[in-house]
C-alpha cells in the first residue's frame, strides 16, 4: 500500500451512489464490523463465516501480527506477547490497572503513558487496538469490494475523555475516518428502537468483557434521547473471571507465583467455567500448569454467586443511581434491554429481575446489537439515507467536567448527564496581587477533591494584566462536541488575552508518535506527509465548494449580486488551484472563500431555523 487514501465523502456525480460505511463494535472480548447493504444491516463475517473477532493481538517472533481466533488459541503458550482485553488499558495509566498482578503482562510507564512489553517492543494500547481495527477494516473492504468512506466506532458511555481520544487515535492509526464515536448503549438502543419500533422509556444494561454501562433513553418517533447514563469503565466479565481465578488458587492451594503462561491458562479455564455456568448448575474448572500441577475443581452456581455478589451489587447500585439521575421510578420503565455477552450470566438476570420487578428483555442478540446500531448510524452519516426517515441521537456527557481551584478543590463547569454538544463557561479570578499567569487544570469526575478526579489537561493563560488579587476576570469555556470530546478556552475578558487547549490524554500516543507510526506503516517519509496534507486540504476545499454551490442554488436570494459574483469567482479560482495541486494557494483561497461565505452561511442557518420551526419547506416561505 503506497499511500493512505482518504476518500471524498459527499462528492459524487451520482446521487444514488452508495457510500461504503461501517459500524465497528470494538469490544473488550470480541469485536465486530457491520454495514447496511441493500437496506439490510449485516454483521460481516470472516473467511470461516465467523462474525465475532476475538479482541486478541499477538506479536509473533517473525515480526508479523496475528489478530483474532488464531491469536486467542495460542494465548496461553505465548501469554506475554498475546494481548487480551486491550480495551481495559486504553487511555489508562499503569496505576489505574486493577488485578495487574494477575495479568501475564509487563507494563511500563513512559512519561505517564502505559506501554506493554512485547517481543516487538513496547506497545501502546492505542497501537494494539489499531491492529484490531485494521483487521476489521480489511474484512469490510474485501467483503464490500471497495474503500470505506468512514466508520462509526462505539465506546462505552462511561469512557472518559482520555479513553475516547485514545480510541479515536487508534482509528486514525488504522487509517479509518471516524464519522462519530458512538456510545454503546445508545447504539444498542438505536438498533433495538429501529428494529422493534419501540417507544417509551428504556434502560440499556450493557455488561461487556471489561466495561459496564447503564443508560436510560426516551425513544420517541425518530428521536433517541439519553436521559442519564452511568457505569464503570473497569467492570466487566473479566472481573468475574478474576474472582474465579482467585477462588481456584485458594481451593487448589496454589501459593507459588505463577508464570505468565500459567496465569493465562488459569484465567481461560476460569472464563470457560463461568460461561458453562450460564448453561448448567455446575461446571468444571480444569487446567494443567506448566509444572504438571493439575487443577480440577467443580464450581456451582451458588459458589459463583457468593464470590461475585459484590460485583453484581455494584451494577444494581449503578442502575439505581442512574434512575435517580433521570428522576424516574421503576414503574415508568417500559423495558430493560440486555447488551453484552456477560449479561448471559444467570446471576445478572436474577439480580435485575429482583430489582426491577420484571424480567429484562433479551430478544435481541447481545453480541451483535451494538455493531448493528453503529452500522445504521454510519449509513446515515455517510449520506446514504434520504433524510425523510432520519433519526436523531441526542446523547449526554457521562462525567462532570471541572477545574481545579484553590486548595485542591474542583469547581464543576459541566455537570454529568448534560445534553451534548454543550458549551458552558465559568468565571475565575486571580489569587495574588499582580498575578500575570493562571494555571488551568482540567479534570473529569464527580468528586470534590482534585486528586480523586481524572486529570485531563493542564495549560497556562499568560499575559494577564497585573491587577489586584480578585480583579481580573478570566472566563473559561468548556465545549463538549457530539463525540463527547472536550476543548477548553480561557480568556481574560478585559484585555482579550486568550489561551486554548485541545484536550489530549496523557495516557495515549502523542501526535508526533502517531504521525511517525503512520509513516513507518507506509514505508516512506516526508514525501507522504506532504501528499497527505495536500490530499486532506483538497478534500476540505471540495467540501467548501460543494456546500457553497448548493447554497447558491437554493438561497442565492440572501445575497446581493456583487456578493454572488465575488463568491463565484473565488470558487473558480479554488477549483483551478486544486487542479494545480498547489497546497498554499488552495489554503489561501479557501480562507478567502470561508470569510466571504461566513455571513451567507449564518443567514442560511437562520432561514433553516425558521423553516424547521414552521415545518414549511423552502418553496412555501
Amino acid at each position, binding site marked *: 500500500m503506497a499511500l493512505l487514501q482518504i476518500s471524498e465523502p459527499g462528492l459524487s456525480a451520482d446521487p444514488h451512489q452508495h457510500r461504503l460505511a461501517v459500524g465497528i463494535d470494538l469490544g473488550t472480548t470480541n469485536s465486530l464490523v457491520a454495514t447496511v447493504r441493500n437496506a439490510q444491516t449485516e454483521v460481516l463475517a470472516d473467511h470461516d463465516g465467523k462474525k465475532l473477532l476475538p479482541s486478541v493481538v499477538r506479536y509473533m517472533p517473525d515480526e508479523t501480527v496475528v489478530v483474532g481466533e488464531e491469536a486467542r488459541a495460542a494465548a496461553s503458550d505465548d501469554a506475554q506477547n498475546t494481548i487480551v482485553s486491550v480495551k481495559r488499558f486504553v487511555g489508562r495509566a499503569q496505576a489505574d490497572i486493577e488485578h495487574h498482578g494477575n495479568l501475564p503482562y509487563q507494563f511500563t510507564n513512559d512519561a505517564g503513558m502505559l506501554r506493554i512489553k512485547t517481543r516487538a517492543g513496547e506497545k501502546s494500547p492505542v497501537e494494539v487496538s489499531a491492529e484490531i481495527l485494521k483487521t476489521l477494516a480489511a474484512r469490510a473492504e474485501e467483503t464490500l469490494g471497495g474503500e470505506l468512506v*468512514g466508520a462509526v466506532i462505539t465506546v462505552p458511555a462511561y469512557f472518559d475523555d482520555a479513553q475516547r481520544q485514545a480510541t479515536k487515535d487508534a482509528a486514525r492509526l488504522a487509517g479509518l475516518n471516524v464519522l462519530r464515536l458512538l456510545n454503546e448503549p445508545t447504539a444498542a438502543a438505536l438498533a433495538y428502537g429501529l428494529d422493534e419500533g419501540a417507544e417509551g422509556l428504556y434502560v440499556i444494561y450493557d455488561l461487556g468483557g471489561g466495561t459496564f454501562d447503564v443508560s436510560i433513553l426516551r425513544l420517541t418517533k425518530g428521536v433517541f434521547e439519553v436521559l442519564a447514563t452511568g457505569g464503570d469503565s473497569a467492570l466487566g466479565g473479566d472481573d468475574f473471571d478474576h474472582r474465579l481465578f482467585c477462588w481456584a488458587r485458594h481451593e487448589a492451594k496454589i501459593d507459588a507465583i505463577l508464570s505468565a503462561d500459567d496465569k493465562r491458562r488459569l484465567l481461560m479455564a476460569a472464563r470457560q467455567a463461568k460461561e458453562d455456568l450460564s448453561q448448567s448448575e455446575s461446571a468444571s474448572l480444569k487446567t494443567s500448569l506448566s509444572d504438571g500441577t493439575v487443577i480440577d475443581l467443580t464450581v456451582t452456581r451458588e459458589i459463583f454467586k457468593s464470590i461475585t455478589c459484590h460485583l453484581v451489587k455494584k451494577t444494581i447500585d449503578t442502575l439505581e443511581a442512574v434512575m435517580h439521575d433521570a428522576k424516574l421510578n421503576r414503574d415508568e420503565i417500559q423495558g430493560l434491554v440486555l447488551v453484552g455477552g456477560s449479561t448471559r450470566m444467570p446471576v445478572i438476570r436474577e439480580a435485575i429481575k429482583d430489582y426491577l420487578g420484571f424480567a429484562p428483555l433479551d430478544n435481541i442478540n447481545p453480541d451483535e446489537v451494538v455493531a448493528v446500531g453503529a452500522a445504521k448510524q454510519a449509513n446515515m452519516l455517510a449520506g446514504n439515507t434520504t433524510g425523510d426517515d432520519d433519526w436523531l441521537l441526542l446523547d449526554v456527557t457521562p462525567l462532570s467536567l471541572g477545574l481545579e481551584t484553590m486548595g485542591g478543590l474542583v469547581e464543576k463547569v459541566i455537570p454529568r448527564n448534560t445534553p451534548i454538544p454543550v458549551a458552558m463557561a465559568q468565571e475565575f479570578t486571580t489569587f495574588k496581587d499582580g498575578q500575570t499567569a493562571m494555571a488551568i487544570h482540567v479534570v473529569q469526575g464527580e468528586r470534590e477533591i482534585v486528586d480523586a478526579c481524572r486529570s485531563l489537561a493542564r495549560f497556562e493563560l499568560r499575559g494577564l494584566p497585573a491587577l489586584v488579587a480578585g480583579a481580573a476576570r478570566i472566563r473559561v469555556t468548556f465545549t463538549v462536541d457530539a463525540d463527547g470530546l472536550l476543548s477548553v478556552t480561557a480568556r481574560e475578558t478585559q484585555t482579550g488575552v486568550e489561551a486554548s487547549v485541545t484536550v489530549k490524554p496523557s495516557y495515549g500516543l502523542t501526535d508526533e508518535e502517531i504521525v511517525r507510526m503512520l509513516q513507518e506503516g507506509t514505508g516512506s517519509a516526508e514525501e507522504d506527509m506532504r501528499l497527505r496534507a495536500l490530499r486532506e486540504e483538497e478534500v476540505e476545499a471540495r467540501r467548501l465548494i460543494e456546500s457553497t454551490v448548493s447554497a447558491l442554488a437554493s438561497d442565492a436570494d440572501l445575497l446581493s449580486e456583487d456578493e454572488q459574483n465575488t463568491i463565484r469567482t473565488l470558487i473558480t479560482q479554488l477549483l483551478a488551484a486544486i487542479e494545480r495541486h498547489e497546497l498554499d494557494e488552495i489554503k489561501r483561497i479557501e480562507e478567502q472563500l470561508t470569510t466571504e461565505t461566513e455571513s451567507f452561511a449564518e443567514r442560511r442557518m437562520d432561514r433553516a431555523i425558521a423553516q424547521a420551526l414552521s415545518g414549511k419547506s423552502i418553496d412555501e416561505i
Partner: protein
Amino acid sequence: MAQKDYFELLNQPRRYAVDFVSLEAAKTKLLARLHPDRFVSASALEKRIAQQLTVQVNEAYATLADDLKRAQYLCKLAGLDVNARKAMPPEFLMRQMMWHEALEAAQESDNETLRGELGYKVKAEREALLAALTQAFDETSDMTRAYELTRELMFIEKLASQI
C-alpha cells in the same frame, strides 16, 4: 452572529407560563435540522456554525424547561441580577430562618415522618411560588415582585436539595 434570546430561538412567547409540549417540539425540530450529525460531510465553516447553534438550542431548552432557570432568565432579560447581594425584605429573611430551623430539626431528629412532612411543606411552598411567579411575570408585570419571588425560589430549591 447575533445571539437570539432563548424564547425567540425556541419560538416561544416571552412569558413565565410555558407550554412544555410546544417547547420540546421546537427543540426537537431545531436539533433535527442543526445537529452536527447532519453536517458530517459539510465544510468546516458549516460544521462550526451548526455546532454553535446546536449548543445554543440545548442551552435555551435547558433554561426554559427548568422553572427556576426560566425565572432567573426572565429577570436577566429585564436587567435584574439574581446573584447580586441585594437586601431582601425582612419577611423574606424571617421565612428563610424558619425554614432553616425546620430543616435542622428534621435533620437532627432523624425522624422519617418529620423529614417527610418537611418535604411536603417545601413542595407546597414551591407550587405556591410558581403560581405567584406566573402572576407577577405574566399578569401584573410586577418585576420587583417577580425578582423577589425568584430569589425565594432559589432559596427553596436549595433547601429541597438538602432534605
